[in-house]
């Protein structure tokens, strides 16, 4: 009896998880059964984007740290996976300058992805140690500078990354099922992180760092740990992404991609896992529709020039509109719960939503 009560209590308390997961799983099953090739691709890519966005939400949403570096850690994860998984012969041909010991490195796919996450987390641990002490302007500029440094290293270190050229030859391992499982795991990780003691402390430092310090929260420590965990998720997601895309260049881990991630967080609401999930849905759907529109326009030759960049243009406008109209995002700072419109702690949510803005 008490077992059942425990389960009910657990579900009641964490109803956010089924509320977010069940629709996505149902959509995934329906699409994999009846969907067209294109729809399956779009959904798989959405699942990967979701895990990228949720990784970013962990530190940007909870900590209020504008971690521009996130997309850089995704890149590190992608390259590590690429080096570990790509067959030796393909590496010899594709990355002629690669260090011999890297060429010989080989690992099965799953451990490779784990290693990718760990490497990203280790690099994050080294570079974030000084960075997390900074605030405001200094924090924004240094994190941005760090992304630039990561990008420069990726485009120049051709013994590892093949320089600015394409790194290719990865097997296509990430399927809809794997991406879906990864996305569900990401939701769970991001949710439990947000609800954990560490996540709570991180949110406290975001809302009022002086008050947080007054109750004994070490802001540098909690930010530091949050940053590393977020990088770990970024690295793993980067590995999955690489095993889906199979060829990529450093361009894929720079401003434009970071902008899409930020758009997901801002449009849905960075403060909560539900917000980031909703943002990922909106951005993925909008991006695909705009891409279709673009190619339709270009194929019909109604305009005298080719249209590129429509997706980013519209996303930029959407982002500013959301920031003006509802700065905490469409969902806001609170988590969706079951039943959806009957929240006990409405006052608490409202307060949080205000602060998350």
């Amino acid at each position, binding site marked *: 009896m008490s077992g059942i009560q425990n389960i009910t209590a657990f579900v009641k308390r964490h109803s956010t998880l089924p509320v977010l997961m069940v629709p996505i799983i149902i959509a995934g099953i329906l699409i994999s059964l009846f969907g067209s090739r294109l729809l399956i691709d779009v959904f798989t890519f959405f699942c990967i984007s979701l895990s990228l966005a949720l990784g970013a939400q962990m530190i940007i949403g909870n900590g209020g740290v*504008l971690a521009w570096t996130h997309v850089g850690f995704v890149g590190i994860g992608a390259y590590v996976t690429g080096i570990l998984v790509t067959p030796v012969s393909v590496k010899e041909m594709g990355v002629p300058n690669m260090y011999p010991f890297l060429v010989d490195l080989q690992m099965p796919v799953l451990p490779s992805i784990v290693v990718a996450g760990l490497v990203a987390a280790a690099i994050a641990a080294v570079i974030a140690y*000084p960075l997390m002490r*900074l605030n405001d302007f200094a924090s924004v500029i240094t994190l*941005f500078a760090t992304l*630039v440094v990561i990008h420069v290293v990726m485009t120049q270190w051709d013994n590892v990354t093949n320089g600015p050229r394409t790194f290719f030859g990865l097997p296509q391992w990430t399927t809809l099922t794997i991406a879906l499982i990864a996305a569900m795991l990401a939701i769970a990780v991001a949710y439990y992180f947000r609800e954990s003691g560490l996540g709570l402390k991180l949110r406290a430092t975001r809302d009022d760092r002086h008050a947080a310090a007054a109750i004994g929260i070490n802001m540098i420590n909690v930010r530091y740990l949050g940053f590393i965990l977020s990088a770990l998720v970024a690295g793993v997601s980067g590995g999955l992404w690489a095993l889906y895309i199979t060829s990529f260049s450093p361009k894929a881990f720079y401003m434009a991609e970071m902008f899409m991630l930020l758009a997901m967080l801002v449009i849905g609401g960075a403060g909560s896992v539900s917000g980031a999930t909703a943002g990922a849905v909106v951005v993925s759907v909008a991006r695909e529709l705009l891409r279709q529109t673009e190619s339709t326009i270009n194929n019909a030759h109604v305009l005298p020039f080719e249209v*590129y960049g429509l997706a980013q*243009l519209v996303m930029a406008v959407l982002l500013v509109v959301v920031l003006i109209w509802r*700065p905490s995002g469409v969902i806001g700072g609170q988590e969706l719960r079951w039943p959806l419109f009957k929240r006990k702690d409405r006052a608490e949510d409202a307060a949080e939503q205000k602060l998350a*803005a």
Partner: protein
Amino acid sequence: MIDLEFLISTLSLGSLYALLALGLVLVYGILKLVNFAYGEYLMVGGYAIYLSATYLNAPWWLTLIFAVLGAVLVSYLTELVAFRPVRSKSPNALIITSFAVSMFLQNIVLILISSRARPVSLPAFFSARVTILGATTPVRNLVIIGVTVVLLTALSLIMKKTVLGMAMRAAADQFTTTRLMGVPANVVISAAFVMSGLLAGVASIFWVSRSASVDPLSGAAPLLIAFIAVVMGGMHSTVGAVVGGYVYGLIFNLLSITLPASMISYRDAFMFALVVLFLLFRPEGIVKRGYTEERVG
């Protein structure tokens, strides 16, 4: 190695960077906004030269005026349309807005013009070489030093002698108090954006003259330079920005001649590593000024 030629090229590079940094700091000082769209004002300036020269057949001096006007206009419009409504929200919202504005401007140029670089024709005397005291240098290097001296003098006179300048300085120190004294916030902020656009416009002329072309992404590099210069010089004062610009020019030139050829491509990474070190060991920059940004630890 350190001769007159080096001195002139460092001074001219430093002047360009000082203009860039100053434009960024003017807005940051008042609004506490790290303006990611600042580089795009320069890009717009470059396109203004290209468009007016190609489609209007404007003489060179008119294209330069268009460059400055274009940058000023875009700077003012972005303030009006994007930054003003978000202003009262959180600082992060403001920064993300500026990033979105930057993306918007890049992509609108991409869609309306092209992703390919467009040639920008500047008057021939710009790149003509002259010899002074044994040092050979393009004329534009001397022009930019002169222009920067004039602009800096004019700006400091405006800041010190006019009511608007005083209001801006007061707003940079204590914005709320300044408003309570009856200074209209919108006017001060708009003025900062107009001046920022003006500096970006002037800088864009010299920026595009170095590569003689402009493309949608050409705002990124000057933005990064402005960031670094501001951090090194000190982000709380206009003097700091100018000093930072010149110091950046000096370090950049020194790195260019001292780094081995194989490491040159990592120069940006070195510069940014330097910024991170600066922020850690001297967060207030070279020029210290009363209030400094709070650090967590």
